[in-house]
């Protein structure tokens, strides 16, 4: 940080270089602060590990190997990151409207069930028709679920954090009911599941990789969400409404449809995550759909500061921590909770680091001239 600040005053440089520096400085803040927070969080965790009598160097070496150190590890990380991308969008999109929606899990499981339900009568249809209709059904189911959270918020003033969380429990109960009742494959005795989907509807791996297409879908969705928020008038309106609802209403913005629409889109993305779980991983809908991706997505979205583009590296980071967690258990005899302690520490430090924004002169070119 200091090397930028200690450079000669911009007056002595060419305007182009100066402009480039300013551009860089303004954007560096959003990268440097979270990275520094990550390093601090890991340093704190080293102390914790040393206190329980294990070697922090061995720990980080294993984490690197397990998460990123080889082609196998990278694919392992990316496989685990794939569902987190869409799950995190379910938090990040409403967040731009000032809403804290934490019930993405509900949209994921219902999306999965909807996808499995439409796949059964479609068996025999062409591959792309089946996959497209499964995706649409899943997005509709998830969109309705989280869209309802938005509608309750705007039209009935129900707190969206509580309602989305409670609706996630309802969604899981509904999934259990459907999977164990009307949609059950009678052959699934001890693990109730829906009928297995037509093999033609399976979303396979990306060529040359052992990671399914869900990763690409997630990345495309993140980029699309970023464009929506930053580059379109709807995104602009959403950001205004997120900043100050009254101001947005005074400007004549349709805040209600904006809130419901963004929530529905967010839920649609989560529903799509459920469809990909069914199509690429499980092969049918069953209780394993409630794997907690919706909750990990909250962590990812907050670490990414609700920026859809930042969700991509953060999801990969958490996927890597998750992938290496197994190796830590196996090689260092550490309990699984170790990884949760690490995630918790990083989460806390990054949240605290939020208070640092705007405090460093290095990141604020407007202040450079004043001191010069």
């Amino acid at each position: 940080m200091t090397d930028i600040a200690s450079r000669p005053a911009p007056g002595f440089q060419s305007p182009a270089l100066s402009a480039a520096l300013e551009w860089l400085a303004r954007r560096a803040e959003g990268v440097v602060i979270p990275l520094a927070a990550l390093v601090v969080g890991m340093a704190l965790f080293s102390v914790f590990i040393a206190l329980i009598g294990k070697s922090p160097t061995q720990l980080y070496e294993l984490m690197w190997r397990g998460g990123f150190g080889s082609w196998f590890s990278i694919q392992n990380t990316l496989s685990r990151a794939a569902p987190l991308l869409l799950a995190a969008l379910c938090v990040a999109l409403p967040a731009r409207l000032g809403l804290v929606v934490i019930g993405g899990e509900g949209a994921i499981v219902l999306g999965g069930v909807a996808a499995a339900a439409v796949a059964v009568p479609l068996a025999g249809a062409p591959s792309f028709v089946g996959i497209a209709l499964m995706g649409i059904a899943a997005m509709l189911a998830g969109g309705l679920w989280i869209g309802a959270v938005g509608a309750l918020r705007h039209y009935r003033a129900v707190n969206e954090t509580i309602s989305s969380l409670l609706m996630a429990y309802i969604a899981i109960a509904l999934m259990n009911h459907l999977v164990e009742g009307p949609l059950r494959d009678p052959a699934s005795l001890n693990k109730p599941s829906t009928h297995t989907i037509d093999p033609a509807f399976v979303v396979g791996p990306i060529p040359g990789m052992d990671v399914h297409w869900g990763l690409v879908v997630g990345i495309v969705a993140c980029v699309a969400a970023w464009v929506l928020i930053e580059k379109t008038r709807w995104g602009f309106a959403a950001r205004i409404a997120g900043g100050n609802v009254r101001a947005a209403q005074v400007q004549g913005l349709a805040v209600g449809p904006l809130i419901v629409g963004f929530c529905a889109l967010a839920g649609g993305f989560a529903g799509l995550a459920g469809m990909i779980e069914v199509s690429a991983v499980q092969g049918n809908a069953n209780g394993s759909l409630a794997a907690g991706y919706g909750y990990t997505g909250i962590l990812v979205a907050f670490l990414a500061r609700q920026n859809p583009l930042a969700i991509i590296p953060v999801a990969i980071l958490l996927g890597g921590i998750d992938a290496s967690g197994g190796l830590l258990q196996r090689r260092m005899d550490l309990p699984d909770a170790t990884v949760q302690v690490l995630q918790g520490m990083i989460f806390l430090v990054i949240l605290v680091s939020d208070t640092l924004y705007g405090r460093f002169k290095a990141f604020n070119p407007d202040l450079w001239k004043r001191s010069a």
Partner: protein
Amino acid sequence: MLPQFMISRRRFIKSSAAAGALGLAGAGLPLGAARAAEATIGFIYVGPKDDFGYNQAHAEGAAFLKTLEGVSIVEEENVPETVDVQKTMESMINLDGATLIFPTSFGYFDPHMLAMAAKFPDIQFRHCGGMWTEGKHPKNTGSYFGYIGQGQYLNGIVAGHTSKSKKIGFVAAKPIPQVLLNINSFLLGARAVDPAITCQVIFTGEWSLAVKEAEATNALIDQGVDVVTCHVDSPKVVVETAAGRGAFVCGYHANQAPLAPEKYLTGAEWNWANVYKMYVEKLLAGEDLPNFTRGGLADGFVKMSPLGPAVTETARTQFDDTLAEIMKGGFSVIKGPLKNNKGDVVAAEGQSFPETAPELEGMDYLVEGVVGSTS
């Protein structure tokens, strides 16, 4: 001898980790060559290893293997039934050089273990749950499972002697065949003592849902139940809640006596150490591993917790006699005349279903005397 072996094993792992850091593992060689004399075996659990239940029962089996010469054990807990478990298996094969993997949760089988078995035809996979079918599933996979219903029958005998209110209770996860057989066996054991006893069942809907398990236990005791057992992944909450309310408990999966030494009567426990030992001995001897293995109390797949201090002498006598009868083999808990709790005959006079009977695997009823519904 043993401590030295342990140390050398740790050193070995450390040095192989260091070797891996130098890039050996990166080259795709799973350190297998360095471990020719040793077999690495992977265990995967869906919950914590110390849950006093399903996962602990398997982890105790794995812990037993650690005492054997020539095997190295790698374990991973809290692995969900998603792509995570596939990657965990792959990681055990690629990074640890595991040649035999035990994915212990029921939901790991299809599609997760089958996908990995197709990808790694030289690696052996054995799954707990009994789903392997000849001709349908690959030869490098297999199933093992135990008939634990008779353990719940013995639980029921002790419960029947201990209950004063003549009401016993069962906290169950899901109304699936395995669970229904346990509930029915528990009630029939108690009715072998006193035909007036009833068993109230509450389904929580999930394998692991502590809050609902506590609520269900409290609700049972509020209704006058004074002996409780359960079939959930971790009986810890049920045992502690029931004992805290003054009720007696019968255990399941593992020994929960340390949680309630005074109130614990007995329990139906898995004896996986015995099963895992069989696999490992065959593996080390270079023999083929069986694809399908099943057994009950008589075969050493299941065992009973030692009887607790509250068990009376008459209860102990009937328990011992029945256990001796079961150990002879061929014992039937489900035998006619028997009706379900809707009044339909499920076993006619003279009809009996020993634990190996295929009819029991599709059980969809609760017997007369069980208060509750499967749907």
